[in-house]
């Protein structure tokens, strides 16, 4: 397998029915991402960048066109198979963290392991190790509302890492953070990329996009030429 062919979108469109009209979120996207790349998907609100992330992350499937992840065609997989791929190969980080509000930091990090069928003792050990890694070893028993924004995003990153995925997808990960916490989080992503992961940041902020190796601009559902 050619490294260039790690994540391949070919003529991908996505149409959302919205009442009587259809919203054309993606209009024929062609994109290749190499394994181990650090990529930013840059575009204004409504440009379709989140939709690309959802498709790359197997949360959503294209209306037409194909997506191959590591040689496997994603279109045509059923929701249970897509979930399996998300669980084992992909970690998500969201702008608003998306932590379970009534679960502790540690329990949140354990969540992917629950669905992978890991037993409780191993889950605990693995979650604690990753939390140490993101610098939250002292906050494991805290609920999300007892943590700062930066700490919450670290918990979310720990959760995305716990299953050892090779791909990290982050949607505006610094959007809800002050500049100092944002910088720390970006540094964390740089480190995770340096460790060999494919990291894809979705953002509207050019200065953040510049921190990556490659910027893919998207506007009105189409990739803009570099």
């Amino acid at each position, binding site marked *: 397998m050619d490294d260039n062919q790690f994540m391949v979108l070919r003529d991908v469109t996505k149409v959302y029915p919205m009442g009587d009209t259809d919203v054309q979120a993606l209009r024929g996207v062609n994109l290749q991402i190499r394994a181990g790349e650090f990529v930013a998907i840059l575009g204004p609100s409504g440009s379709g960048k989140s939709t690309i992330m959802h498709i790359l992350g197997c*949360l959503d499937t294209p209306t037409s066109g194909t997506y191959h992840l590591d040689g496997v065609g994603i279109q045509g997989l059923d929701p*249970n198979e897509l979930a399996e791929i998300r*669980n084992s190969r992909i970690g998500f980080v969201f702008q608003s963290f998306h932590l379970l509000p009534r679960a502790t930091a540690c329990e949140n990090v354990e969540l992917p392991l*629950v669905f992978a069928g890991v037993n409780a003792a191993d889950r605990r050990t693995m979650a604690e190790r990753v939390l140490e890694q993101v610098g939250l070893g002292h906050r494991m028993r805290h609920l999300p509302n007892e943590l700062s924004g930066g700490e919450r995003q670290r918990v979310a990153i720990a959760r995305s890492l716990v299953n050892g995925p090779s791909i990290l997808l982050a949607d505006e990960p610094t959007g809800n953070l002050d500049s100092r916490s944002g910088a720390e989080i970006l540094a964390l992503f740089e480190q995770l990329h340096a460790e060999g992961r494919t990291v894809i940041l979705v953002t509207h902020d050019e200065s953040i996009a510049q921190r990556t190796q490659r910027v893919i601009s998207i506007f009105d559902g189409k990739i803009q030429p570099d």
Partner: protein
Amino acid sequence: MSSVSHLIRQLKQDRIRIALTLFGIVWGTVSITVLSALGESVHRALLKGQKGQGDGLVRVAGGVTSRPYAGYPRGRWIGFIRRDGQLIRDKVPEAELVCAEFGAPFREVAWRGRVINVQMLGVEPAYRDLRSCFPQEGGRFINDLDMRQRRRVAFLGNDIKEKLFGEASAVGQTVRIMNLPFTVIGVLRPKLQLSSYFTLDKSAVFIPASTFESLIGWRHVSGILYRPKDPATGQKTNATVRTLLAARHGCDPNDSRVWNVYNTQELVDILNDVGFGMRVFMFLIGALTLIVAGVGVANIMFVLVQDSTRQIGIKMAVGAKPRQILRQYLLEGFALVLLGGVIGLLVSWAVLWLIRQIPMDQEGLAYLGRPELSPVTALTVSSVLALIALAAGFFPARRAASVDPVEALRYE
């Protein structure tokens, strides 16, 4: 995070809503359990009452011929005598407890100035076992010696004893029947009796058939009672008895007007049908209550799913398979119904225990019987609960599993 700990978390959050739902399931379980148990015990009491008259008992009485036979015209009276009973005893081994019966003219029975008018029966010793006429402590029923010596002894129905003697002891006392002294040899132990052709045994006075014959001077008995040894071949036994008596009295064994047959097995069959119908009815009422409670569970599960759409989306984003989500909510619904069901069964057990503490002195209450939580009831109720749990959990769980993670995560 197991689904049980998740459920406990939800329980803490929606305490009142869940408590009400649980109450619904408990109430439904108690309804179906108690009603089923009552249906069962009333059925049992009815059968017991029927058996109070005699278990599988057959009574043949004479009648008037309705067709000519062997040169005799129709319209002849055929009556049986005590020797016919002996004949059955000798010739039909498939029939047991054969007993001739004279009854039941009203006669005055007196003790110390108290006089009552009572139906008097002349019976043979087998009557005791045939009709469950067991004596209370210290007494006995009519025996063979009484028969041979035509003794003037009387066995009193418990109502009669009550009326004549009140609290005083009757055994050994002398009562006057038709102004002749009779020694009381026993008093009927109270029993549940549903039906009778003369009077209930508790309101009759029994004397030996031989004494009755010589005292009253009747030649024909009112009926001959017996019980087929094997209920399965009862019809055949009855035919044998009919053929035997027909040959003896010169009449057609198939002339139904001669054979006034009274067969308690037929009544038992009817009672069984009635009892079954009643139990089904009770069960359905209870089941309906439980189904309403099940709708409540489904409702609250829908609310839980609704409230946790975003969390379901998060779980799916980190790799929860739709079928794992489905299973989680199914289990939650199941756990909720199960919890209510277990509490309901415990409460039912307590309610039934309370019902059993009600004194059953009155005739009507006696037919409540002694309701118990039988294994059959517990098993049917549990199956119904399980079915309702599955149904109540399934639809909300299916909705949870069909949450679109992109949709669920898009909005704050």
